[in-house]
């Protein structure tokens, strides 16, 4: 496959960026999207140019590091996959592909396609945990039975990989799906209920401080989420927040 790539290049956080055009040739349709970028980078290095910086790590769709907006969609076309799980056979020979970083005020660009997502970490610091010491002197794991339905729902919420596709897809750059996934996971478990009030208030407060937008229920986050985290979690967070506010 031969392709034209339009890629966002930006030297560093303070520099002004812009789109640049590159050509790659002889790409195997079996290659992954990131392998295609590896080839581009090898080409750039051999030409004495600076390779394109992009985040990636596990390349099997679980670490959440890869974060590219491809042709206007986070993680490119296709549902339920991360950028590293996108394969070139999804494109056609001769295509022009736009590659941009995930855009949000709370995700400032570090370089080229690499963005700073520590705002997500700070939301977790605000309450994404259960306050239990790791001493091992807790009660037996089976001491509190948990309804399977709730355990499964908590798991579904907990599969969030923190990639930021929800924010990138949202027209408002809202982080509600991300935040609600953690709030939901703990709200559904008896261990997490104890500090549910504090948690939801603090996490939402931090989410707002980071400069994410407001949710307007377009549902883009749910569809673009590589793990299919449901909007149900946002509704649950709204309820939890209301409950906590009147407490």
């Amino acid at each position, binding site marked *: 496959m031969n392709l034209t790539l339009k890629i966002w290049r930006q030297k560093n956080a303070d520099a002004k960026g812009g789109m640049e055009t590159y050509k790659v040739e002889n790409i195997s349709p079996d290659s992954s999207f990131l392998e295609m970028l590896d080839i581009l980078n090898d080409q750039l290095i051999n030409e004495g140019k600076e390779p394109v910086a992009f985040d990636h790590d596990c390349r099997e769709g679980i670490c959440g590091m890869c974060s590219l907006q491809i042709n206007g969609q986070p993680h490119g076309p296709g549902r339920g996959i991360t950028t590293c799980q996108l394969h070139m056979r999804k494109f056609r020979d001769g295509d022009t592909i736009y590659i941009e970083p995930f855009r949000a005020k709370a995700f400032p660009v570090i370089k080229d396609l690499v963005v700073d997502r520590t705002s997500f970490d700070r939301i977790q610091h605000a309450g994404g945990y259960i306050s239990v010491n790791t001493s091992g002197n807790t009660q037996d794991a089976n001491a509190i039975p948990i309804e399977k339905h709730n355990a499964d729902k908590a798991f579904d919420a907990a599969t969030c990989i923190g990639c930021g596709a929800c924010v990138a897809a949202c027209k*408002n750059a809202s982080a509600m799906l991300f935040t609600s996934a953690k709030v939901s996971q703990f709200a559904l478990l008896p261990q997490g209920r104890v500090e549910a009030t504090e948690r939801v208030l603090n996490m*939402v407060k931090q989410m707002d401080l980071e400069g994410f937008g*407001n949710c307007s229920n*377009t549902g*883009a986050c749910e569809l*673009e989420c590589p793990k299919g985290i449901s909007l149900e979690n946002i509704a*649950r967070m709204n309820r939890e927040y209301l409950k906590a506010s009147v407490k």
Partner: protein
Amino acid sequence: MSGIIKSSIARKVSMGLSALFLLIFLLQHLIVNFSSVLSAEMFNEFSHFMGTNPLVQFVLQPILIFGVVFHFVMGFILEIRNNRARDVKYVQYKGSANSSWMSRNMIYSGIVILAFLGLHFYDFWFPEIGYKYIHFLPEDPNRYYGELVEKFHDPIRVILYCLAFVFLALHLLHGFSSSFQSVGFNNKYSPAVHKTGKVYAILIPLGFVFIALFHYFNSL
């Protein structure tokens, strides 16, 4: 108010609640208006009641006005904030891949509705307020039907009226179920809410359009 402005979820919930309130109002408004199709007397009776009942005039009407103003003001505030949340825009943004046109353009359908409200106030509400509370003209329980019908003689106005309701339909197609989600309602009944929302979003504006066309064609 400052608390509502400060938290994103409070803003969202208040937006949803005001929307739910307006949904009920719309339904009530349609029922009253629809009576004009059935009989002039019925319409006059309804209108006279609504126009003179102190509870409606001095309690419900201010609440409604507050709800409408709140919904619009908050809508604009949210739009501005949401715009700021993405300071550098995408070169390519394919919103159609993951969301409906309606959901992404609530602000535009809202602005059209706001413009229509301006016209609507100009046509009905201002004259009504002037009639009752400025000029203190004597109440005539049979004047309403005539006032209504008269407005639908002008084809331009009827076209604008119909167009506005198309936008209201678009607004409601997303807004109905969205307001439920906003107040935290998402469970096994949600698919039913979605379906009801679609029906509501089409039938209500269609009803208003029907009334307008009915009176227009009657006047020919």
